[in-house]
């Protein structure tokens, strides 16, 4: 057999074997490979229909079941792990008959440099190009965002591409499970997302950042820093999508923006005075553009300013969720009564 034919056979076999292993590993480790699932809470007669847009932070930060019951709402939305307004806006059109739109954001969600793993699958390429051009993004950011599109095609064959943290974290979990020393490492295994009516949170979501060892804290901070390439910015494609969502909300229904807090450990490490200022400035600009939109600033709640209320650097645990939900209901009632 000549060398050329040998090479063709070898490359085809290698690609096939690698694809099988890649699919097998993602299935075995239950790594999220699909972007979204529609969820709905509080269905029933006579309830007001609400579209909720938010990431996993929204799922963990507020008890949507309780909110639905207490305010007599049917709340629905699409869950996309690690998502932000850039992804949410593409589901906004699918919602019909919603009387209210609740957008849940945080300094983590709005940081332009945190990119959702599923961005390329949800956001059309043309929209991405337009947003990058309009936001005068740096060339390195262009490259980073655009490279997600070929990666997305590659994932059809090799779903584990770009999900190495999920693979490494998942393998660790498996080993620890077999060794009967299972310590949940959910956030290391990749982003997860759950919206449910029941209040029962899995064990790992009951942890407290305040109980972390210094080594664990460092590891998580380093992971977070790598994910954002150690950059913080609030003026880019996410902001443009956020503005478009609010414009549509203002035209079609009523809009409420909820700003969730992140843990003090995150604030200390990433939210320098300049970053804080930039974040507040970005929110103020949005607020100025859409004065009719109501705002609920849970990030300004002193009670939540403790690592006790977070199970990781940005997600609230049930203890934090309880405080945040109560405050949300109180402020929501106040907003409604003012109208």
């Amino acid at each position, binding site marked *: 057999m*000549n*060398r*050329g034919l*040998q*090479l063709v*056979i*070898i490359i085809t*076999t*290698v*690609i096939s*074997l*690698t694809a099988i*292993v*890649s699919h097998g*590993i993602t299935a075995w480790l239950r790594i999220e490979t699909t972007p979204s699932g529609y969820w709905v809470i509080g269905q029933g007669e006579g309830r007001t229909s609400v579209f909720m847009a938010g990431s996993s932070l929204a799922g963990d930060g507020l008890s949507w079941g309780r909110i639905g019951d207490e305010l007599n709402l049917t709340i629905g939305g699409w869950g996309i792990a690690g998502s932000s307004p850039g992804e949410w806006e593409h589901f906004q059109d699918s919602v019909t008959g919603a009387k209210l739109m609740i957008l849940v954001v945080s300094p983590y969600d709005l940081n332009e440099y945190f990119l959702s793993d599923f961005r390329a699958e949800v956001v059309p390429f043309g929209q991405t190009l337009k947003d990058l051009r309009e936001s005068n993004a740096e060339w390195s950011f262009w*490259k*980073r965002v655009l*490279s997600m599109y*070929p*990666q997305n095609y590659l994932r059809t064959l*090799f779903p*584990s*591409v*770009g999900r*190495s943290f999920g*693979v*490494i974290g998942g393998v*660790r979990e498996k080993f620890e499970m077999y060794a009967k020393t299972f310590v949940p490492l959910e956030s290391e295994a990749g982003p997860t997302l759950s919206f449910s009516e029941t209040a029962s949170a899995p064990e790992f979501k009951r942890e407290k950042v305040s109980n972390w060892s*210094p*080594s664990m804290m*460092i*590891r998580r*901070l*380093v*992971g977070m*820093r*790598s994910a954002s*390439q150690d950059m913080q910015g609030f003026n880019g494609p996410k902001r443009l999508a956020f503005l478009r969502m609010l414009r549509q909300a203002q035209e079609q229904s009523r809009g409420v923006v909820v700003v969730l807090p992140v843990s003090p450990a995150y604030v200390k490490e990433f939210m320098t005075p300049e970053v804080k200022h930039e974040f507040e400035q970005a929110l103020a600009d949005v607020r100025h553009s859409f004065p009719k939109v109501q705002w609920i600033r849970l990030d300004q709640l002193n009670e939540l300013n403790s690592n006790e209320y977070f199970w990781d650097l940005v997600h609230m645990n049930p203890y934090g969720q309880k405080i945040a939900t109560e405050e949300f209901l109180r402020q929501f009632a106040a907003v409604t009564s003012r109208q």
Partner: protein
Amino acid sequence: MIFTSFEFVVFFAVVLLVRSCIHSFTVDKWFLLVVSYLFYMSWSIPYASLILLTSTVDFLVGVGLGRIEDQRKRKLLLVVSIVANLGVLGYFKYTNFLLDNIWLGVTSFGLSASHWHYDILLPVGISFFTFQSMTYTIETYRRNIQPCHSLRDFLLFAAFFPQLLAGPINRAVNLLPQFGQHVRFTAIDFETGLAQFAVGAIKKLVISDRIAPHVDMIFASPSNYDGFTLLQGLLGYAIQIYCDFSGYSDMAIGAARMLGFRFMENFQMPYSSVSITEFWRRWHISLSTWFRDYCYISLGGNRIGIGRTYANLLVTMLLCGLWHGASWNFVFWGGLHGVSLAIHRAWTAWAPLASLENRPAFQFGWALFSRLLTLGVVLVGWLFFRAQSWPSAIEYLSRLMMWNLDGTRFVSPYIFPSLAAVFLTHLFMHKDRNWAQELPQRSIPARVASYSALAILIVCLGATESAPFIYFQF
């Protein structure tokens, strides 16, 4: 555009595809020249003119050296080439270093002086392409090669994209003749190159990029950590820089091989060395041999007496340190290696333990001790190489030596597995063999199994947002 980016994969695929359609040798070389400049322009458009300028000067000097017989004029021409290359390098790389030190010197005598500092952006790869270009003029001057009469071939030699940004620093005597013969890539070349490229990608994406954030964090504030963490950070950096740079070199050599060209090897299991002399025969081979051939030997080498030999070693290594960067940390790093090389040379000449060399127990113990001592010197060197400043390096070293327990202990989940992987590779692989280049000679099942393992490692554990290579800053 770095080798581990999607852009490069697309760029390289297009180059391969277009080249396979080109049948004219002349068109092929023009095509490679144009894509090489386009590759560099993806980093910086204005600085592409810098490569053009230095290459054109060296080409003209080469033509002159071929025509002129008068030794004095030939020497003058060589000086023109060296001044042009080192002048460009010096301006971009050392101007501010020089100004800072002049200012520091003047003010330390109590005199007042303006502190001048210019915003000079270092062109990527400048230390590499200037050194590579100089190999041509020096070798032509020494009459080891014939002058090149094709400007296109010479420009291609200086700017050939696989080696343009961070080497290997190919010798004109090896690479230039390859542009004179019609090189077509063959299946075996392609396979060998692809295997070496994949090995390099694993070193970079699976090891170096994984441990880099943890190493960076430890080096950013050594006073926060205990001795164990600092040792971990130092070992991590040794692994990171090895996998980063040798990974880059493997990818460069692999990419060139896929195109049908052969580059010199740049790394050969350096951490398995039993002496610092051997380390420099295995680490960044293209640079160490450059300094040996064009600096150490030009200074007289070991031909002018023992004292001068040691002085030459020291000067060569100090310059090698300075080549890496305009900072006293690099100079110290070079000096440390220079002194170590001199000590090793003196020890070898003295040979006080020669009578014990035939005893097996001594051989084993001595080999182990030599390895550890070599690694120790290399690690201390890396500390100064990596530290952000001189005080930071001293603080790191003192806390490490005193094994401080009062800082935070951080256990990286990536550094120790990476260390184990590199250690086992160095332990079990023959240090003079190139595994990637031997693979294509094996049976089909063995190749399928090996390549699948490489591909699975990349698609399951590889970082997709790769950091720039460390040596791009040099």
